[in-house]
């Protein structure tokens, strides 16, 4: 009798669960995942370039500069030197203080001008023609520098 009651109770509980299950609707739906990737380029800070020039003779030594450009993978970009409103890869200029004409050249990067997601190095190389006679009103130890020049500041600009 006791077993019969337990069995009956269990059966009734099972039937109750089944009916509860049958009464609960199951709903599901699909959803999308949206990824918004903002492609961009970043630049490191370039160092200064230096030209040591022997008046009337020519360049005795130079110091080039370099910087890294990092762009999103597969992103095409271009770089140029910028001074004032002018941008170019090769920039000839005559210094406003010492009067020496020189050229800054932005070198091609390793790997081309398409982003890889990693740093790509560029060099800025100065050069000057020989036998120039510059301007030197007050040399210090026989040397004049172009401190205060109005046309010796540059930027590297990346466009993407």
């Amino acid at each position, binding site marked *: 009798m006791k077993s019969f009651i337990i069995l009956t109770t269990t059966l009734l509980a099972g039937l109750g669960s089944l009916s509860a299950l049958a009464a609960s609707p199951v709903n599901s739906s699909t959803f999308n995942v949206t990824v918004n990737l903002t492609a961009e380029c970043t630049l490191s800070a370039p160092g200064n370039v230096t030209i040591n020039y022997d008046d009337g003779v020519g360049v005795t030594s130079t110091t080039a500069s370099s910087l890294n450009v990092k762009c999103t993978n597969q992103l095409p970009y271009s770089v140029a030197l910028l001074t004032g409103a002018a941008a170019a890869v090769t920039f000839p200029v005559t210094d406003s203080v010492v009067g020496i004409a020189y050229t800054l050249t932005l070198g091609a990067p390793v790997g081309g001008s398409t982003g890889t997601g990693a740093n790509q190095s560029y060099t800025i190389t100065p050069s000057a023609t020989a036998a120039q006679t*510059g301007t030197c009103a007050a040399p210090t130890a026989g040397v004049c520098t172009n401190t205060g020049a109005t046309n010796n500041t540059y930027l590297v600009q990346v466009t993407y």
Partner: protein
Amino acid sequence: MVNKLHHNSLIRQAATASILALGSLLLGCWSLPSAAAVKDSPALSARINLKVGGGSGGTALCRTGSGIGPFGATLTVVCSTGILTDYSGGASNLPWVTAIEDNSFRYLLSVFGPSGESLGVVDSYTGVGTVTTWRTIHLNHQDYLEMTVHW
């Protein structure tokens, strides 16, 4: 029943229109060319160190035609300071060497005639800090040498 069917149809049409509109918007955004972006690096400067004085090692050679030997005495003058640093050859026939050692520059001007013949030399010296200019003036079939000295 008919109203319910019609209502469901309207809902489906509205949903379809919304999906199409959203799809068009997404396609439009995809095809629109994005505006070019630019970024500038921090500034860099081009520094120029101009060494004046010229010549090799900042010196210049001064020669005289009145010295010993075919080439005379060779004097080396440091251009930036005007100080005589060295001379080779005997100085017994070069009394003006003393003047050179007193930091005076020696100017030797060879004068040539219109046909290229040598008319002689103008041998003189001036002290440090003196600016000297030379010019020849042709006047009345004569050549005059004008030397101006400033100190």
